[in-house]
């Protein structure tokens, strides 16, 4: 069954990229259908942070809200890097095997209206301009096909829409206007770490955050409950559902359909998409015609959809020219050190990741290893805020002594996280699993990940820096550390539909159009040629989306920007 829904553009994936794309397209007067395979979430009922058992409830898993995928076997672990293995004071070593493993689901994401912004912390970073020229300036990875100057106006637009609260200092990231809102105050735990950073001569400053520091655009300010990652019931966090998508809907020109899985792409004419095949929440399959298609399912699902199409329709293969589809999978290299401060700091509250150090963010910040990293306050992202976490992970033993120790330790936790550059490697890519299939009978994506010697060297630098900062801050009592050496754990994945000027080495161009396919765009982090030195990708993706929407509206629909 084919339906003429009379949309100008169909966007597949209602996360950060798809949401921003949809918003800008309706601003241009276009009619948009925004599809997502996952459900809609209701902040008032889905994020019950007012319940006594709040700590038991992580971000909700609803039917269809997690994509399916598999992992190829990962590399073995070496005794030489034992100091990079994850541990905590209660259990000792967390991965007791001799091989790297996925941590829980491994790829941490949300499918649904708002996508992973629903559970994200809400860091609103601009990419360091120096991280956009890795190939030309450092001989590794790939260059971005556009520069920071081209993106700056779109960064500003995204920041205004979301209501980013940030500091006056700009560092490497020049700005044409201030942040829309003043920075948040640092919580007591972050101020504790600031003392340590000061001793080391490191700059420890407010982190730009997509959480309101003042009432803004009809939304209330943050009240520092510290639980952004469990979902924000107030709407002060700038997740895509309460910002871009809400505004797109309000225009009357954007229809949002949750629980709709795209199972096929329909090519119409030479190198042109004509429709998508969709299975809706009732199981009904329908074909939706579209003049233009934007894929925004993320760096795992978007290449999967294209690889599936190419497997089923080899003569109409998409993005197959350069052989790059699914390759260049980048993840976020991470390390976290958690400890207990000697004084109570009420660290269960505060704004997550409210403070950051950019001193090592440039690609050449450390001698002997290409790739930057950043450090940030991380006690909330480490989920060391409630008594369950303290009892299970930080305070060893049991019995009355243990109960007293848990009560005493509460509010003392501090944590530092480092997130760093991950470079392309032939061993890191996405392909189709030869045996595992979804409920539609289609092969699942399979994630391959490999840490090469450079990645391990950078991780060691990151771990050393976290430990140094904790020590300088007087947090001698480390209780847990974890990182990407022995676990695959990624919320940010990139690169599998790389953006570039040359079709032989890239999937999409600087306007996010698939090379050679005028009406097919990719608008998610799969287009990132490099991961950056620990910057959260959401704001950059939204800036790219807004820019690409303008280009698409102009090119295909004659709209003027």
């Amino acid at each position, binding site marked *: 069954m084919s339906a003429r829904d009379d949309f100008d553009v169909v966007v597949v994936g209602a996360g950060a990229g798809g949401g921003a794309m949809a918003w800008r397209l309706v601003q241009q007067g276009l009619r948009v259908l925004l599809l997502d395979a996952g459900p809609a979430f209701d902040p008032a009922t889905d994020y019950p*942070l*007012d*319940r*006594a*058992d*709040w*700590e*038991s*409830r*992580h971000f909700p*898993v609803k039917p269809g809200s997690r994509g399916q995928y598999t992992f190829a076997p990962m590399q073995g672990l070496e005794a030489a890097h034992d100091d990079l293995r994850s541990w905590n004071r*209660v*259990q000792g070593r967390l991965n*007791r*095997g001799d091989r790297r493993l996925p941590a*829980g689901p491994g790829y941490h994401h949300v499918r649904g209206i708002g996508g992973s912004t629903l559970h994200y912390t809400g860091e609103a970073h601009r990419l360091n301009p120096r991280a956009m020229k890795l190939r030309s300036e450092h001989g590794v990875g790939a260059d971005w096909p556009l520069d920071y100057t081209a993106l700056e106006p779109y960064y500003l637009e995204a920041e205004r829409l979301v209501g980013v609260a940030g500091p006056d200092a700009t560092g490497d990231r020049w700005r044409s206007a201030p942040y829309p809102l003043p920075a948040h*105050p*640092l*919580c*007591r*735990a972050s*101020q504790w770490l600031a003392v340590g950073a000061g001793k080391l001569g490191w700059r420890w400053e407010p982190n730009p955050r997509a959480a309101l520091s003042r009432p803004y655009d009809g939304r209330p300010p*943050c*009240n*520092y*409950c*510290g*639980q952004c990652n469990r979902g924000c*019931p*107030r709407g002060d966090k700038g997740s895509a559902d309460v910002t871009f998508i809400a505004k797109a809907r309000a225009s009357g020109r954007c229809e949002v359909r949750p629980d709709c899985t795209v199972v096929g792409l329909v090519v119409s004419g030479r190198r042109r998409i004509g429709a998508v095949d969709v299975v809706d929440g009732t199981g009904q399959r329908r074909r939706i015609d579209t003049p233009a298609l934007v894929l925004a399912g993320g760096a795992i699902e978007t290449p999967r959809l294209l690889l599936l199409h190419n497997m089923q329709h080899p003569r109409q293969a998409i993005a197959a020219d350069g052989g790059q589809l699914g390759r260049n999978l980048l993840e976020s290299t991470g390390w976290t050190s958690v400890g207990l401060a000697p004084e109570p*700091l*009420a*660290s*269960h*509250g*505060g704004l997550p990741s409210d403070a950051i150090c950019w001193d090592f963010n440039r690609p050449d910040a450390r001698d002997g290893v290409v790739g930057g990293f950043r450090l940030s306050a991380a006690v909330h992202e480490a989920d060391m805020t*409630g*008594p*369950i976490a303290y*009892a*299970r992970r930080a305070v060893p033993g*049991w*019995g*009355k002594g*243990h*109960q*007293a120790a*848990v*009560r005493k330790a*509460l509010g003392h936790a501090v944590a530092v996280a480092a997130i760093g550059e991950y470079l392309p490697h032939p061993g890191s890519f996405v392909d189709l699993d030869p045996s595992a299939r979804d409920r539609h009978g289609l092969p699942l994506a399979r994630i391959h990940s490999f840490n090469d010697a450079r990645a391990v060297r950078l991780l060691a630098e990151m771990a050393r820096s976290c430990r140094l900062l904790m020590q300088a801050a007087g947090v001698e009592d480390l209780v847990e550390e974890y990182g990407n050496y022995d676990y695959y754990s990624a919320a940010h994945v990139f690169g599998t539909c790389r953006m570039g000027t040359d079709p032989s080495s890239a999937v999409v161009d600087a306007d996010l159009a698939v090379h050679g396919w005028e009406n097919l765009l990719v608008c998610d982090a799969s287009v990132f040629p490099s991961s950056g030195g620990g910057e959260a990708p959401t704001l950059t993706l939204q800036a790219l989306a807004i820019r690409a929407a303008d280009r698409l509206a102009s090119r295909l629909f004659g709209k003027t920007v």
Partner: protein
Amino acid sequence: MPSNPPRFTRRQALGLAAAALAGLVLPAGATETEREGTGQDWAARTAPAIDAFCDTLLPADPPAPAATALGVPAQVLAIAQDNPNLRRLFDFSLQWLDQSAGGRFDEVDAATRHGLLEAMAALPWEAPPRRFFHLMRDMAMGFYYAHPEALGEARLPPPQPGGYFESLP
């Protein structure tokens, strides 16, 4: 048992159970679980030992109540009773405790129970009772501290609707 048990909960507890069972090999014929009725029958029979185990981990420490007063053992058993592999792990480990105690684990005094748990926690990771100990500790702590009463006077209000402005200077 409280009228509205927390939901630590089934999904998280099952995740812990899967981790505890990963790579674990129980000796063939080590337990007789499969001959003995339904999961509910098994839970009823196992309850005294699990009550004692949970209250050893989390005894009454006024004003904080014991694990049994908050219904923790029942929540643990509800997870295990539907999973034959978990039931076998429980049975094997509780037999280890009984043998080590020289009688029923739930009938020895508190100091002896504490010592038995120390011995269990010190076993090699590959030993099923060691896995059982960590699984029990994780589940019991998770269910127990989901109750605000568990913190006694140190209890925190939930994050919303008031937030935590005390975390700011």
